[in-house]
């Protein structure tokens, strides 16, 4: 039993959990105990191998769970809003008896509705698809409208006119130009959350046409494009988003996004695009802040690609 005490003390020693008295005690014991000497070596190797068995988190998995989280949080928001509104309304106007009557009536209506849904056969056609109302558009801007499953149609080629089909409780459509705030919100939602990389790609291409015409987009939209450039799981989508950033004002958001890509993107083509982006901006007279210069110094040492290291070094030199 006593040796068990020293075995436990040894585990705590190798886990760096002992105070000075306990440390001295176990050290003195080890000097005179060959079992503990061997055990110390064995446990040291075991803990080292456990530490080395650590695996990197796959980035595509990380991007995928982040996207799912955004959808889930949106669902949470829309759920709580519905219940809060109903509950708040009922609380204000009903007495106890009326609450009971109201609840019974509500259950009756729900039963009728369920029966209607089960017995009614309806065919989906474009004529039965609702158009996004202005009330829904307001909710969308406030982040309270749950949307999923985008389909995409453009009415004209090389144009920023869009007609979107999507699900929001019922199938919906909305057609407008990207100058429309509601359309920007819908597109922003789709590029951040839709599962289909083809949809995200097509929408970003349309955004590129719009931005190239020097038209303005909201700060929120600009931030969303930056997020897609940094975090989308599809490298093709990230590339188009980065190209979009090229045409936006070179503010802190854009600069931080480009530096993030340079330091974190696994795709060497994208990191090359990012360093070329910074080079172009510098040649056009944009200055680099201290944070960017510090990051560039790190890249001259850490990046695996020689071209990127060289370009980073050149940028630092020119910035002096």
């Amino acid at each position, binding site marked *: 039993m006593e040796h068990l005490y020293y075995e*436990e003390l040894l585990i705590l020693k190798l886990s760096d959990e002992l105070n000075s008295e306990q440390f001295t005690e176990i050290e003195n014991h080890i000097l005179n105990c060959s079992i503990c000497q061997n055990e110390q070596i064995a446990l040291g190797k075991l803990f080292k191998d456990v530490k080395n068995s650590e695996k990197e988190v796959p980035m595509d998995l990380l991007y995928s769970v982040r996207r799912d989280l955004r959808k889930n*949080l949106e669902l949470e928001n829309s759920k709580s809003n519905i219940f809060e509104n109903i509950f708040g309304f009922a609380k204000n106007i009903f007495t106890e008896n009326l609450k009971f009557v109201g609840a019974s009536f509500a259950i009756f209506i729900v039963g009728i509705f369920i029966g209607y849904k089960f017995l009614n056969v309806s065919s989906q056609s474009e004529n039965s698809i609702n158009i996004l109302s202005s009330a829904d558009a307001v909710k969308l801007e406030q982040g309270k409208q749950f949307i999923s499953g985008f389909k995409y149609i453009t009415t004209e080629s090389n144009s920023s006119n869009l007609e979107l089909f999507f699900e929001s409780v019922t199938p919906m459509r909305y057609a407008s130009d990207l100058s429309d705030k509601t359309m920007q919100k819908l597109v922003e939602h789709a590029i951040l959350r839709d599962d289909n990389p083809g949809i995200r790609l097509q929408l970003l291409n349309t955004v590129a046409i719009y931005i190239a015409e020097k038209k303005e987009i909201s700060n929120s939209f600009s931030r969303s494009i930056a997020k897609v450039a940094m975090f989308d799981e599809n490298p093709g989508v990230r590339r188009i988003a980065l190209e979009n950033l090229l045409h936006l004002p070179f503010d802190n958001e854009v600069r931080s996004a480009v530096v993030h890509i340079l330091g974190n993107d696994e795709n060497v083509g994208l990191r090359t695009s990012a360093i070329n982006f910074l080079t172009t901006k510098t040649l056009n007279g944009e200055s680099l802040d201290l944070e960017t210069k510090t990051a560039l110094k790190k890249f001259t040492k850490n990046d695996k690609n020689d071209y990127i290291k060289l370009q980073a070094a050149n940028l630092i030199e020119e910035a002096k």
Partner: protein
Amino acid sequence: MSLNDTKLIQMFLKGDQNAFEELVHRYDKRVLALALKFTRDKDEAKDIYQEVFIRVYKGLKNFESRSQFSTWLYRITTNVCLTQQSRKKKYQHISIYDSQNYDDDETPGVEAMLKSDSRTNSRVEGREIKERVEVAMEVLSKQEKIVFTLRHLEEFKLKEIANMMECAEGTVKKYLFNATQKMRVALSDLY
């Protein structure tokens, strides 16, 4: 300039969803890594990730900043890992002891899958060691696995782990000793 966690929480509570997203991005890779180490199953790890951050999202309004946000986050993560029901029993939890008494002189029974017959006396490649270590961790109980992972992979102190698991430090030590002994026996041919 990056904002600290407290500032981001305040911004989120005022309605800034981007602040919440930035807060998530600071820690989510580690949470996902812990979930993957604990479950060894991508789908289960994804479920844990979602559950943790939805709880954080709902619970932030009640977070009192008495502890650090990271400690609170890991407490939630630990709790979700421990209460997560496995979708499928991938691995049988086998006891490698005939009894739980370490002083027992009987040779503990070790399942064949934990021994590599042909390599008992030879040097094992790094990759095989990793796989052996992963398989060996499957014999640990949930509590032992989480303590062992938090201590040796995430390098938290035992006091911090006790805080996360909301139990006494002595209990955490007991889990650590049990886990170490089981790993030691499971990998006895390597060390």
